[in-house]
């Protein structure tokens, strides 16, 4: 079983998003990028399958200029190979263009199963796994958990609203958008990642993508909140006193 895991980096929401409020453009170079957390779950699910049945795991990223550390981290966690798709890409490259490059790569390099995070925080023009599947006309499912290999079939769960789930079976090749791995994503120490940088290589594959339909984004802007919480200031004890008073006023606690 050959598994390809798609990974991408996204702006770190712990920091303020860099936006030119006059032009409505995102300032990609002024933001810190971190691996998309759903992709971390996809990698973890792939590594769990490798642990269980000995799958060969390749992790792939489109070369937007900041992906080496992410790929070596995946190798340090247990991925067998790392691939970087090079070409005319940068942090502003659309998901659609990335999906086209990945689909082109998959046409030349056969895999049985492609796992990716079900979504990323910045995929305004569509989610990459579904688009890769759509371009290749491969079967695909999103919001997936609990993947297992059963003979020549893949079994998995799909989540719907309200806690409802279904167990599905599918033939390969198959693309799955992972919601959450069965276990929290494993950790690779900085030392181990550094060691990987010395002992392993990232395969660079030229993947100049064809022209794709690009979504014409007119502007980004901050939402005007309909309301905002009345902030309670002070030390924890003062805040706790005020909250208790509010709860008493509303008869939510006795007193």
């Amino acid at each position: 079983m050959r598994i390809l895991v798609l990974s991408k980096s996204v702006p770190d929401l712990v920091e303020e998003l860099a936006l030119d409020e006059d032009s409505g453009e995102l300032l990609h170079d002024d933001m810190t990028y971190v691996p998309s957390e759903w992709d971390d779950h996809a990698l973890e699910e792939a590594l769990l399958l490798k642990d269980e049945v000995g799958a060969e795991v390749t992790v792939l990223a489109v070369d937007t200029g900041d992906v080496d550390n992410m790929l070596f981290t995946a190798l340090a966690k247990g991925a067998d190979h790392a691939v970087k798709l090079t070409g005319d890409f940068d942090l502003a490259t659309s998901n659609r263009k990335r999906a086209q490059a990945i689909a082109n790569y998959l046409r030349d390099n056969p895999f049985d199963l492609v796992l990716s995070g079900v979504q990323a925080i910045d995929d305004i023009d569509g989610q990459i796994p579904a688009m890769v599947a759509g371009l290749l006309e491969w079967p695909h499912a999103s919001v997936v958990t609990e993947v297992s290999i059963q003979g020549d079939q893949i079994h998995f769960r799909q989540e719907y609203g309200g806690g409802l789930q279904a167990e599905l079976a599918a033939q390969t090749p198959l693309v799955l958008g992972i919601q959450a791995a069965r276990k929290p994503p494993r950790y690779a120490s900085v030392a181990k990642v550094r060691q990987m940088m010395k002992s392993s290589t990232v395969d660079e594959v030229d993947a100049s993508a064809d022209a794709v339909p690009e979504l014409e984004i007119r502007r980004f802007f901050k939402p005007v909140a309909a309301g905002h919480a009345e902030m309670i200031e002070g030390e924890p004890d003062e805040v706790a006193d005020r909250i208790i008073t509010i709860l008493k006023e509303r008869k939510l606690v006795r007193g």
Partner: protein
Amino acid sequence: MGSILVVTEILGGNISDTSRELLSKARELSQTLGAEVVAVGFGSESAQALARIDADRAIAVTGQAVEQYLPLAYERSLLQVMEQESPQLTMIANTTMGLDLGAGVAATRGISLAAYCNGLAVEGDEIIAQSQVFAGKLLAEAVLPSEGAVVTILPGSFPASEVEGHPTVTTVDAVSAPGMSLIQVLEPEKGDVDITRADILVSVGRGIQDPENLTLADELADAIGGVVSCSRPVVDAGWLPKARQVGKSGQTVKPKLYLALGISGAPEHLQGMKDADLIIAANTDESASIMDVAHYGTTVDILDLMPALTERLRGE
């Protein structure tokens, strides 16, 4: 005349509320654009359900392949309908079905998609889509191309259509897709407690940091007479069972008091709790989205706040 294709979800013989939201917006857009509203539904119950909605025409896709939800058969069947209709705009709710179908059909057909859409407007002869990105921290406006685009729409973005209509319903055969099959439907896990019935929820998020800190939440819930619930990351980390999860893929709750502790307020979470009577949020980031729906907020550390509250409640 162009058309707006609305992909509906039918549950237990009824059109879902979210589908009705899409229909009301489609009707509004159609009047400005002079387009007709065409609804598509799947399964043997769809023809009857579609016959009563506010659309100009409806297409019921029927056959064994779509009798139960299967992403592949639905996608292939929707592609067939889009091939025949060539709609100017295709609207799909951003549910699991929307995540399955939206980006996939857009890619296969070579057309654009705007995801996480919560607003649609006509300007001149162009349709402008507003999308919510970066966990609700930014909005984006996109100009949709006139040759047919797909939008996936966040539930709750538009009022639900209450209008009863009489569209002409045609039935088409589903495209069979043997590559994917259903093994079984799994009903929601029954937890030790039903968080949808609790009057007070002590809800914890990523800010709880460590599973050992859950004791503080348990003690607070015990002292206040509430139940501990949580946001998605806490479930994904394996710290609390799925039955405790509030939000889109968990439970929708409407308690008298919702204490949001260390929860940033991703759109999927807000969808499940924003209608609580009283929301008090503690998050170190005052600009976190949870503060936009909370009535009261504080930026003190929840690991200090929880024991301080418990102490006061116990002392009464």
